[in-house]
C-alpha cells in the first residue's frame, strides 16, 4: 500500500507508465471477446448491408448499382404502403402509454392486493409474440372473442373476420401491440412513481389539493424521464419487435396491409430473393431508429 509514497518522483512516474501500459494491455485483452463478437456479427454485417443496399444482390452475386436504388425504393408503391403501415402503428403509441399510465396510477393507490395485480399484469411480458399471435388470431377471427363482445353489446353489425381486411387487420395488430406493451409500460411508470418522495404528496394533502390536480401537477411532471423512456421503448418496439406477431397473425397481408418495414425485409429477401432490396430496407429502418435516438438525446440534453 505504501509503495507509491516511498518511491521517488521519477520512479513513481516510471512505475505509473508501466502500470498504464499493463493496464492498456489487460484492457485490450479483456475487451477482445466483446469486440470480436460484436464486430464480427453486428458491425461488419451492418457495413455489408449498407454496401449491398446499393447493389443488385441475390445472395451470391452482386452488381453495383449505386445510391439510385434508394430513389427507386421511395418510388415503389408497395414500399410507400409499408411506410404507411408503420405510420399507422405509430398512432397506437400514445394509447400504449396512456393506458398503462392510468393502470399504474391506480395500482399505486395501493388498494387491497395491488402487488398481485402488478405481478399478473406484467406476466404476459414473459410469453413470446408467437404465443400472443396464436391467441390473437382467434380473438380477432370470426367467430372470436371480439365478435362475441360486439354481439353482446348490440353492435352485431360490426362483427367480421378482422384479419381479412387490410384496414381492420392493421387495427388488430395495433391493438395486440398495445395490449402487449401494457405490462412493460405499467412497470416503468410504477418504478417512476416509487421514486417520488411521499413528503411531496403529504404537502399536497395538507394544501387540500384534489387527487386529480395532484396527479396532473405533481405526478406527471415528476415522471418526465419515465415518459421519455417508455415513449422511446414503445416506438422501437413498434418498429422492430413485431415480426413474429405479424408472421403469425397475418403473414403481412392481406395485400401488404400489415407489412411493416421489418416484415418487408423478410419478404423481399427470403420470399422474393431480392437480398439487395432487403438490405436497403434494413438501412432505412436503422436510419429511422437512429433518428428516434437522436431526438431522445437532444431532449435529454435540453434538460441539463
Amino acid at each position, binding site marked *: 500500500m505504501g509503495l507509491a509514497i516511498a518511491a521517488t518522483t521519477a520512479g513513481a512516474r516510471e512505475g505509473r507508465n508501466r502500470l498504464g501500459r499493463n493496464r492498456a494491455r489487460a*484492457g485490450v485483452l479483456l*475487451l477482445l471477446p466483446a469486440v470480436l463478437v460484436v464486430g464480427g456479427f*453486428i458491425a461488419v454485417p451492418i457495413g455489408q448491408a449498407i454496401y449491398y443496399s446499393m447493389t443488385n444482390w441475390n445472395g451470391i452475386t452482386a452488381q453495383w448499382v449505386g445510391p439510385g436504388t434508394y430513389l427507386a425504393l421511395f418510388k415503389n408503391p408497395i414500399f410507400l404502403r409499408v411506410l404507411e403501415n408503420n405510420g399507422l402503428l405509430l398512432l397506437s403509441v400514445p394509447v400504449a402509454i396512456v393506458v398503462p399510465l392510468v393502470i399504474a396510477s391506480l395500482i399505486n393507490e395501493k388498494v387491497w392486493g395491488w402487488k398481485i395485480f402488478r405481478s399478473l*399484469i406484467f406476466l404476459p411480458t414473459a*410469453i413470446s409474440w408467437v404465443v400472443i399471435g*396464436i391467441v390473437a388470431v382467434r*380473438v380477432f377471427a370470426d367467430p372470436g372473442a371480439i365478435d362475441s363482445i360486439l354481439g353482446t353489446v348490440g353492435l352485431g353489425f360490426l362483427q367480421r373476420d378482422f384479419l381479412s381486411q387490410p384496414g381492420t387487420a392493421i387495427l388488430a395488430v395495433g391493438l395486440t401491440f398495445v395490449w402487449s406493451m401494457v405490462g412493460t409500460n405499467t412497470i416503468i411508470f410504477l418504478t417512476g412513481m416509487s421514486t417520488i418522495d*411521499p413528503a411531496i404528496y403529504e404537502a399536497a*394533502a395538507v394544501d387540500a389539493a384534489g387527487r386529480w390536480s395532484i396527479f396532473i401537477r405533481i405526478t406527471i411532471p415528476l415522471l418526465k424521464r419515465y415518459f421519455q423512456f417508455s415513449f422511446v421503448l414503445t416506438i422501437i418496439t413498434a418498429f422492430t419487435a413485431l415480426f413474429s406477431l405479424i408472421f403469425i397473425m397475418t403473414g403481412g397481408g392481406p395485400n401488404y396491409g400489415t407489412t411493416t418495414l421489418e416484415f418487408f*425485409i423478410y419478404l423481399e429477401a427470403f420470399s422474393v430473393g431480392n437480398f439487395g432490396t432487403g438490405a436497403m430496407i434494413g438501412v432505412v429502418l436503422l436510419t429511422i431508429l437512429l433518428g428516434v435516438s437522436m431526438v431522445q438525446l437532444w431532449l435529454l440534453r435540453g434538460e441539463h
Partner: protein
Amino acid sequence: MNAHDQSTRLLRRVGADTAGFDSPAPTPRLAKLARGLRADPARGAIFIFLVAVTFVMLYPFYFMVKNSFMSSQQYIAGHGFSTASWSQLFSALPVFRELGNSTLIAGSAILIILFCSTTAGFTFAKLAFRGRSVLFLGVIGCMMIPVQSIIIPEYVNLSHFGLINTYTSAILVYGALGTPFATFLMTAYFRGLPDEVIEAALCDGLTYGRTYWRIALPLAKPALVTVIVLQFIQIWDDLLVGLLFLQEPANRTITVGLAALSSGRVVSIPILMAGAIVSALPAIAVYIVFQRYLIAGMTLGINR
C-alpha cells in the same frame, strides 16, 4: 482470509451503491397516507377496475388452457372437456426435442454473452486507457442496430461457412445480439463498485485478469442473474433468428416449432394451444422466480 471476503467487507463498509439493483425503497408514509384515504368509495371502484384489467391481461392464458382441454370437435362445438389434444400434442410437435434445442441454444448463447459482457464491462468501468471510450461507444452503439438490418448479410456470411442449419449459427447470432445491452448493464454495475476494491486487489499482487475473475465477477452476481433472465426470455421467445438459421425440423427451437405448427395447413386449435402452453411455461417460470431482476434490468436504461 481470501480476497473475496476482503472485497465484500470493503464494499459493505463504503456502502456501495450498485447501480439501482436493489428494489426501490418502501414508502411506508405513502402507504399510511393512502390508508388514511380509505373512507373514499373510489377505492372500491379502483379494485374492480384492476380486476377487469387483470382479466384482459390474463385472457390468453385462460383461452389457451380452456381450449387445450378440448378435442377438435369439442372446440368447434364450443364446449366439452377432453385430454385428447394433450396426448396428441407429442406426435404433432416433437416437444422434448424442441425444448432441448431451445435450452441448448439459449444456454450456450448466454454463456457467450456473459463472458463478453463481463470482461468488457469490467474494462469499461475500471481500466482507464486511451481509446476506451471510442470502443465503449462502438460496442454500446450496436444496441441500436435492429436484428432485421443485419440479418441478410449475417445469413449470407454464415452460409459461406456452411453454418446454416447448425446450432452454432443461432448460438453465435444470439450471443452477438445480446452482448451490447449486457455490456451496458455490466458496465453500469461495475461502475457502482468502489475503485478501492479493485485497487486493493491489484496491490495484493493480483493481475487484472485475476482481479476480474476472483474479485469483480463474484461481486456481480445480481447483475449476472439479470443478464441471464433477460436474455433467456428474449432468446427463448425469439422467432426470426431461429426461423432463418434453423430450418431443419430437427434443429428447431420450441418457438420456431410452434410457429411452424401454427402456419401448417391442417392445424388442430386445441393441440396448438397445448403446444403454446408448453412453449410459454419455461419463460413464465423464470419470470415468476426472477421477476425482481427482470424489472431491474428493464428499467436500468432510464437513468442513463
